[in-house]
């Protein structure tokens, strides 16, 4: 894999990149932008360096196409184009250069800068042509830095819900070569089943994440063909901790949201790890759909929140497990969904179409974290600012922000 080691400040760059945000350090005292990541401002020696959104523009000053590398990962993918870019702020940076960026002439070639995480899971800068070019996402280097569904086979673990179905159709529309659509308890009919059955290249498969044998059996059948796994299986019930009678609902939530994820990881994980370097249409990404309240408990959905917190913790562990193989873990955080179990909650809520679009785009952008919808983004912003304050905010007014 690409060199994974980073300094602590370098990890901060990566953490932003994993969310698709290109940020550079700006000195809180003198306003100087600096790069590579530092601990001290090179202009005034202040340690108040803040990660601020950076302009996505710069000039490519020099490029080269590497034909050799000391790194095995790159050596197997030669030739590889990199270059020196002068960022809008004046700092110099190295970047992966898209092949559609013209060779720089005198004065530099304007480029559009974006960030990706590479196969090591760390953030890198990519210079793209200023304007989109035809099929630019299929370019070798960019595809290597994304987890695009195009030409890949995608397992959606549960298509009983509108969300699973919207994802299956969207993923297919976005160019997935095949969609495996998981159906638990096939003897239970569900709306939308027929529409799915008639869709091209969408194959319904029996999968019940609450059942080890079911997951094992399916992993045996298609584990070696699954390039992207999107875990849509979810069990949600409103209810507080003290107010809820008994553990059955909470256990059902854990059984699906936590143990279900663990079963999928144990049975599909090894097969996907083994295929991470398998050509262009390789195993690339594991997608978890998580409630934003995995970050901080929403008392009205206390046990659901807790099960998602457990799942998030598991996803972090899985990310570490997958890291050596190059498989990304993408966590998509959402607020209340447009579904029967969030009926008492007032809008805005995330619709199936929106969620599906966001997931597909996040895969294309190679993200590891995406927050979808106004509520989830609001909660995330508050959480990043101060988790303790968010917890108090969530205890007020029944917790609906």
């Amino acid at each position, binding site marked *: 894999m690409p060199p994974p080691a980073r300094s602590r400040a370098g990890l901060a760059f990566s953490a932003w990149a994993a969310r698709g945000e290109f940020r550079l350090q700006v000195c809180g005292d003198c306003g100087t932008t600096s790069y590579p990541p530092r601990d001290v401002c090179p202009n005034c020696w202040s340690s108040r360096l803040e990660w601020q959104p950076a302009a996505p523009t710069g000039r490519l000053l020099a490029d080269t196409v590497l034909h050799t590398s000391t790194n095995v990962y790159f050596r197997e993918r030669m030739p590889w184009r990199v270059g020196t870019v002068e960022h809008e702020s004046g700092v110099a940076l190295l970047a992966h250069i898209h092949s559609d960026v013209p060779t720089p002439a005198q004065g530099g070639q304007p480029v559009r800068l974006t960030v990706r995480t590479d196969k090591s899971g760390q953030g890198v800068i990519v210079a793209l042509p200023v304007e989109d070019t035809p099929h630019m996402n299929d370019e070798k280097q960019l595809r290597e830095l994304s987890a695009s569904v195009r030409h890949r086979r995608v397992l959606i673990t549960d298509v009983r819900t509108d969300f699973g179905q919207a994802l299956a159709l969207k993923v297919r529309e976005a160019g997935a070569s095949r969609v495996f659509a998981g159906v638990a308890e*096939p*003897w239970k*009919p569900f709306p939308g089943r027929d529409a799915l059955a008639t869709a091209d290249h969408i194959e319904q498969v029996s999968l019940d994440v609450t*059942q*080890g044998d079911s997951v094992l059996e399916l992993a045996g059948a298609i584990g070696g063909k699954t390039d992207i796994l999107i875990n849509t299986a979810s069990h949600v019930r409103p209810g507080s901790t003290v107010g809820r009678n008994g553990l*059955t609902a909470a256990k*059902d939530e854990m059984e699906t949201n936590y143990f279900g994820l663990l079963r999928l990881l144990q049975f599909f994980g090894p097969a996907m790890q083994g295929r991470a370097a398998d050509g262009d249409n390789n195993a690339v990404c594991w997608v978890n759909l998580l409630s934003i309240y995995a970050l901080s408990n929403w008392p009205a959905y206390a046990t659901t929140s807790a099960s998602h917190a457990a799942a998030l913790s598991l996803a972090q562990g899985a990310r570490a497990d997958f890291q050596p193989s190059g498989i990304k873990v993408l966590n998509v955080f959402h607020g209340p969904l447009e579904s029967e179990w969030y009926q008492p909650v007032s809008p805005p809520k995330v619709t199936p179409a929106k969620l599906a679009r966001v997931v597909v785009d996040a895969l294309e952008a190679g993200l590891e974290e995406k927050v979808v919808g106004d509520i989830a983004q609001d909660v995330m912003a508050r959480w990043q600012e101060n988790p303790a304050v968010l917890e108090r905010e969530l205890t007020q007014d029944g917790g609906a922000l």
Partner: protein
Amino acid sequence: MTVLVQLAEALASQKVKTIDLTFTLDPDFPVLVLPPEFGQCQPFRVEEVSRYDERGPAWYWRNFTCSEHTGTHFDAPIHWVSGKDLPDNSVDTIGVDAFVRPAVVMDFSVECAADDDFVLTADHIAAWEQTHGEIPAGSWALFRSDWSRRSPEAYLNLKEDGAHSPGPDSTAINYLIEQRDVVGFGVETIGTDAGQAQHFDPPYPAHALLHGAGRYGLQCLRNLNQLPATGAVILCAPLKIKNGSGSPLRVLALVEEST
């Protein structure tokens, strides 16, 4: 010769055959589906503890979990609110003689094939008795619908408005309790009540009336087609679960070879 010695010989010579009336406990076997606002019946689930591996080099064993009402199962009076205050109303306290009893098999499979929502009434039972004789007191009354031979999907037969499967109305159950003093009522379907029994009067008459009268239920039976209308004996001992409302169990029938 004592009765038991005679029985043993008959079993050995296959003059008395043992028929298995039980579905395999299988994670994929359907369970009752209640409206989503209610707590749900947990299906059978199994997790491996070890299999001759680092978790247990010489042994294979598993943990399983399920509802008291998963698979072929027994309903005790305490299962229903109508039977909640009766004495000895849970599986661990029911007198064990109830678990070994004669059984009659009322075959309405033709009617059920014609109508998914076939409702068994007192009149149907009385008509059946015209042919097969009066149901002896203390028997299990088993209702053959051939439902156990359906595919998993057709077995629950879920539609927009819920499940559609045959079952008794209150006249049938009252008749069996009051007129025939049966020990219990057994069915092939997922519940002793019809799929649409929430709309009956009273709702869920089999559960409400049987358990209110201290009688028992057996569900998800199979192979009833291999039993004679009368003359079989069934063995149906539930697990001895403290305060258990029911239990998955193995149901066996002893059948004399027809001469």
